[in-house]
């Protein structure tokens, strides 16, 4: 079966910086694909090559079976792009904004209202874009990317700088779009977002893909210990260390945390001691995978 996106050996250099250094991946139809990476990892450049905004120095890319470079007006109506900055026409209302984009694609202007409804902005239709909150502006820019009903949607850090409510709200919108059968490619540096939304993620750093797969598979492959915590005083620290299967243990006066690679044995032993009051078990997350791969040192 033909892939929706097929990228092979993409490279792009800006002066001394090798922004993208041999990136290959395929995205299937209907898939929700995430590209994760710290700032400057080359996510945006890779995405721009695939969208057709930049030409790769090396490598080939095909989108919906077509080459995106040079500007391909057969391909453009079939893809929707939400850019990092909220690129709106100045001083237009939300509805006018959508109507303008609709007509660029030859879509009837009345579709604007349907899109406002879809992203929950009907009440803000007559509001100028400058007056919208961060979350509303992001939802509007997603609506602008979807107004012509594209098969493939690119979202570049759609939830950057949003508060937690607005993020969750936007996730629902994105899931809905994906359920309609569209293929979505998303870049983000929020691990929880990728874990919650994406079928498959590629972790990128320094222009390369370090690991790729479904989030759960990546986490399982990490082989990092689980952490079992109980409130301090439920179990003495020395006893905790002596439990069968227990690794490192520490008590900070609030919680006693035991690291283990065999959580079921530890929990069973704790149950035998009747020490399960307020127990919490944390497994590794995508964030652990990410930090394991990209390192923990701070990079400005």
């Amino acid at each position, binding site marked *: 079966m033909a892939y929706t996106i097929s990228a092979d050996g993409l490279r792009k250099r800006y002066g001394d910086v090798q922004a993208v250094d041999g990136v290959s991946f395929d995205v299937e139809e209907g898939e929700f694909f995430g590209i994760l990476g710290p700032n400057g990892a080359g996510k945006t450049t890779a995405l721009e090559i695939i969208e057709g905004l930049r030409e790769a120095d090396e490598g080939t890319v095909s989108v919906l079976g077509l080459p995106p470079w040079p500007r391909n007006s057969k391909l453009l109506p079939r893809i929707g792009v939400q850019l990092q900055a909220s690129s709106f026409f100045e001083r237009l209302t939300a509805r006018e904004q959508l109507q*303008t984009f609709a007509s660029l694609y030859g879509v009837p202007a009345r579709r604007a209202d349907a899109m406002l409804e879809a992203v929950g902005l009907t009440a803000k239709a007559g509001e100028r874009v400058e007056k919208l909150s961060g979350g509303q502006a992001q939802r509007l820019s997603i609506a602008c990317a979807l107004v012509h009903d594209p098969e493939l949607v690119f979202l570049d850090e759609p939830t950057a700088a949003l508060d937690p409510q607005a993020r969750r709200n936007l996730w629902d919108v994105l899931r809905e779009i994906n359920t309609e059968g569209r293929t979505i490619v998303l870049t983000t540096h929020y691990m929880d977002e990728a874990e919650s939304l994406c079928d498959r993620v590629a972790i990128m750093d320094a222009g390369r893909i370090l690991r790729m797969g479904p989030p759960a598979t990546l986490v399982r492959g990490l082989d990092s210990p689980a952490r079992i915590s109980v409130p301090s005083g439920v179990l003495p620290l020395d006893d905790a260390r002596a439990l069968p299967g227990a690794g490192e243990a520490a008590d900070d006066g609030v919680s006693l945390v035991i690291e283990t690679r065999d959580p079921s044995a530890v929990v069973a032993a704790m149950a035998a001691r009747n020490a399960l009051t307020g127990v919490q078990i944390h497994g590794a997350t995508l964030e652990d995978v990410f930090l394991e791969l990209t390192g923990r040192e701070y990079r400005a």
Partner: protein
Amino acid sequence: MSTWQSFRSLGRAMFLGFVRDKGALFFTILFPMMFLVIFGGVFGHQSTSKVEVVEIGAAPLIDQAVARDADLRKTLKVTRYETRAAALKKVEKGDADAAVEQRGGTLDVHYSAADQVKAGTAQGLLGSIVESANQAKSGVAPTYRLAAQQVEDDSLKAIQFFTPSLLGWALASAGVFGASQTLVSWRTKGILRRLRLSPAPIATVFAARVVVSVGVALVQLALFLAVAQLPFFGLKLQGSWWMAVPAVVAGVLAFLGIGMLIGAWAKSQETAQSVTQLVVLPMAFLGGSFFPLDASPGWMRTLSYIFPLRYLNEAMLNVMGRGLGPMSALPQIGVLLGVAVVASLLAMRLFRWDSA
């Protein structure tokens, strides 16, 4: 994909963006209009000022001439003072141009050397009154007659000059600002990238910008002409004034080209704004928008040829103010179109889709 539809909606987006921008509206429409009102009001009636003469006692010779001749009443204002001292005081202070005293067949004229031009005019006028009185006395019909005709079919009043030249300035700043600001803000905000990712042909984006700017310019032209023709300002449109329309269009194209060039080059809106000011203000001063170039020193007139605004001002002045024929604007229109082409080609070379 209908190109026409994209063109229309982009034009609409730009037009709405413009009319909702109170600052832009003020600076393109109201601000130049304020200049027109001030300049037109202050200098508007300058050329009609009369020669003021004070009589010392009665001067029947003058009174009869004034009573007989309606044209004379338009140019000569006569006031009577009973004492010589009061009348001479008026002349000394410059309130009157000359004082006259009739003693029998002699008309004594007292004038001040402070304003020799006015004094000369007054003497000439009074001299001609004496001449014609002598002539009437002789009872012979005059053999020679003077028929004065002005070269303009009305005097080139201040408003005839200020309307086209202030309009030129308004068009230049609107055109250059409009194009450079749109280009830079659309680039920095990512709208250009977004448009590039839509199937609309890029030419429609620029065509829409040009059409909106030309439309705004024609509105400016209409408003300027409407205000300047109010009786208070008294602009009289000359026969081929309609040639101002193609001149305005050519001018807008030239200024848009310059604006695009600035917009393509400038990295930020602040830079674009200051460079635009640096281009437009000197051009307005030295291109003859605020004072007539005819009355400027030679070097300034020579320098003015490098400013596109000079050609627009001249074209509009020729057909609107001076009453020259429609062909008189053609060379200037040609220069403006040339500027538009060259500036646009340069702008295309410098054009970038995004700020990175």
